């Protein structure tokens, strides 16, 4: 941030007359409010990747990229305002990073012919592209997360879960309740006992919940938390001396923010992820030269390499590749939002592609199709190393149990389709 507010103001006034030829990827970020700690690194990563493309390659296919940022504070009403104020600028794709805003935008983006990417959040059944034509949630969704967590536990236990006890500590909201159905199905299939432990918003006081866990002595704890709930849960788990390597959080409970407050006691805590961690990639060297050192980094520029920053980079990379795909399909560089949707739908992420971008092994390989908007559901497990203060990947990307998840997705999608009279677009 090396420019002054004054010059910014001039630049802002000039930018106020929108140049329609740009590729516009609005960023509905939240740098304030209860979830700011999670929103800041993601927004920084998202913006920095596009800045890099602009600075190094001159945009995508020669078209410069514009990322108008709009502050939602994780508030649905502000999310509406942000959506309405940015969609007129030729927005191609939205990534709201909030389950509430996602639900609310699903019908709107469909009507406005704009795509929405909700990697690892939002409505899980949006994977069914037949019903949700404009919503994408590749490479993984909440149910994949639950399934891979169980799979990982099964590996630890030598393939047998019968008679084991798994507790689910979840944020008592739409988001937190997502994995319950999947875990119930899985518990029937594998014969483990599932304990549901809800935590009310905001989750600063979890003594009851963790005393309950201390009494019930589950073998493993899976957590779906967000915001302050994560820090308190990790702390309380350490307090009751729950073995940290048997405590597995979803990807929204697996950033540096969540474990640093508990200090050394958080060592060994595990979390799921759908992209790789750390900053040991060729792309980060480019980021350093073209963005950070050039003083063009978003925010304070101190988030590079953190888990949520990487998630922002990954999200931006997926969108940029989808835009490239769209340019190839339609043979124009200045794509419209409808063409962008086609690009999203035919996106294919391969290892060669990621390596060429300077992000080798950064995420799972997957491809999107008209029926499948959610990829193949490959998720990996990371573990926190409190001495080195870094997350490490401790497993390969594993596929979730599609036999269990697919029927659930079909069921939920068809319920939505009947309720809203959607005929299907494949």
């Amino acid at each position, binding site marked *: *941030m090396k420019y002054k*507010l004054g010059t*910014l*103001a*001039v*630049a*802002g*006034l000039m*930018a*106020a007359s929108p140049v329609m030829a740009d590729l516009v990827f609005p960023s509905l*970020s939240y*740098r*304030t409010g209860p979830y700011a700690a999670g929103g*800041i690194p993601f927004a920084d990563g998202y913006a920095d990747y596009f800045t890099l493309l602009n600075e190094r390659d001159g945009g995508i296919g020669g078209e410069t990229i514009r990322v108008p*940022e*709009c*502050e939602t*504070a994780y508030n*649905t*009403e502000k999310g*509406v*305002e942000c959506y*309405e*104020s940015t*969609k*007129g600028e030729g927005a191609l794709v939205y990534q709201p990073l909030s*389950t*509430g805003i996602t*639900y*609310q935008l*699903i*019908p*709107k983006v*469909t*009507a*406005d012919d704009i795509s929405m990417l909700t990697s690892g959040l939002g*409505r*899980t*059944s949006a994977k069914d592209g037949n019903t949700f034509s404009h919503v994408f949630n590749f490479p993984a969704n909440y149910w994949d997360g639950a399934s891979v967590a169980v799979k990982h536990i099964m590996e630890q236990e030598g393939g047998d879960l019968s008679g084991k006890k798994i507790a689910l500590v979840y944020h*008592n*909201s*739409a*988001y937190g*309740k*997502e994995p319950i*159905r999947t875990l119930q199905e899985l518990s029937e299939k594998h014969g483990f006992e599932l304990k549901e432990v809800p935590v*009310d*918003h905001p989750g600063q006081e979890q003594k009851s919940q963790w005393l309950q866990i201390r009494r019930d002595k589950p073998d493993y704890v899976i957590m779906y938390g967000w915001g302050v709930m994560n820090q308190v849960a990790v702390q309380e788990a350490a307090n009751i001396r729950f073995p940290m390597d048997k405590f597995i959080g979803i990807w929204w409970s697996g950033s540096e923010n969540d474990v640093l407050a508990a200090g050394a006691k958080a060592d060994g805590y595990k979390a799921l992820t759908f992209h790789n961690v750390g900053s040991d990639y060729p792309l980060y060297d480019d980021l350093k030269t073209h963005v950070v050192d050039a003083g063009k980094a978003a*925010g304070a520029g101190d988030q590079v390499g953190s888990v949520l920053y990487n998630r922002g980079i990954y999200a931006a990379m997926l969108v940029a590749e989808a835009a490239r795909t769209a340019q190839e399909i339609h043979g124009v560089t200045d794509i419209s939002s409808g063409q962008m949707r086609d690009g999203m739908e035919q996106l294919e992420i391969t290892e060669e592609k990621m390596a060429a971008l300077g992000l080798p092994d950064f995420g799972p390989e997957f491809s999107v199709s008209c029926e499948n908007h959610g990829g193949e559901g490959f998720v990996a497990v990371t573990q926190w190393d409190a001495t080195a203060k870094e997350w490490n990947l401790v497993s390969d990307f594993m596929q979730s149990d599609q036999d269990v998840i697919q029927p*659930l997705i079909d069921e*939920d999608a068809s*319920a939505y389709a009947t*309720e*809203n*009279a959607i005929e299907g677009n494949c």
Partner: protein
Amino acid sequence: MFYREAGDFSTTYAEDQQTFPIKFDRYRYYVVLFVAIFVIPFMVNDYWVNSLFLPFLIYAIAAIGLNILVGYCGQVSLGTGGFMAVGAYACYKLMTAMPDVSMFIHILLAGVITAAVGALFGLPSLRIKGFYLAVATLAAQFFLVWLFNRVPWFYNYSASGQISAPERDTFGILITGPNTEAWATYMFCLIFTVFSALVARNLTRGSVGRKWMAIRDMDIAAEIIGVNPLRAKLTAFAVSSFFIGISGALFFSIYLGAVEVGEAFGIQKSFLVLFMIIIGGLGSIFGSFAGAAFLVLLPVLLKIVGVDWLGWPTDIVAHLQLVIVGGLIIIFLIAEPHGLAQLWRVAKEKLRLWPFPH
């Protein structure tokens, strides 16, 4: 000069009793209505309606409802968010159970259901007073939110517990869902807002309203002169919840289209609406509108100035926004402790004597 009673004669009882007895006031009211009905719908686009007019109109209804309870009857309530949730979920259940019935009826019915719930939670007010009463309404707030989150029947057993408004129309015009026209949703909410304001205005200056005000000013004294506190307090709770229920139903079905109870109708919503009526002015219908405008429009305005015009980083603008709103609240209170409505009254008083104040 403009605003004066002189030369404005009432020759019938009806004229004497009309809502705006002063000619200038009446014409101003007609002009505002005319602009709202015949000008704005032809000029608005999605952005104006969805980011400014809808929240303003809907919050104005909620503020009118709460103002009846707090401003007119003197019963402090922090359960607004919970009661709005009742309206929203009632509307959702009605919409999905009876798809063919007009949305007007659904929303009114949602108001009626909320009125019943509100009266129930108003019962402790007979015994508990002042800030202590806030606890009863807070209990309602937290309990209702928990209930809607916990019992799957309320959200039709959907996987995530969110409710989404399906497409519905009234008189063949789409009102809910993504494919609505901006003017249609605007008009639909405007009708309810005008209706609420009219009903509230006439209730508060009639015998019911006078009973409420007697209770507010001193309930023991009111009891002695023959006001039944049970009936007065419970009607205040019921009428107030009726409006709040309507606003909750509109908030869900027209404005957002999909809500999650904890996020949309949490405790912060209760505080927000309470702030609106205190800033706007307790015991004033105009104040409800002014307060809603202040807290809905000002942040958007500050955001447009800061981010879109000046191009400052969004987080600095968001923080400055808090500082400015907070500072303005304090400055307003120091300048005029009785809210924006009192400023308006003072302005009218000045206008009456203008240009010769002495």
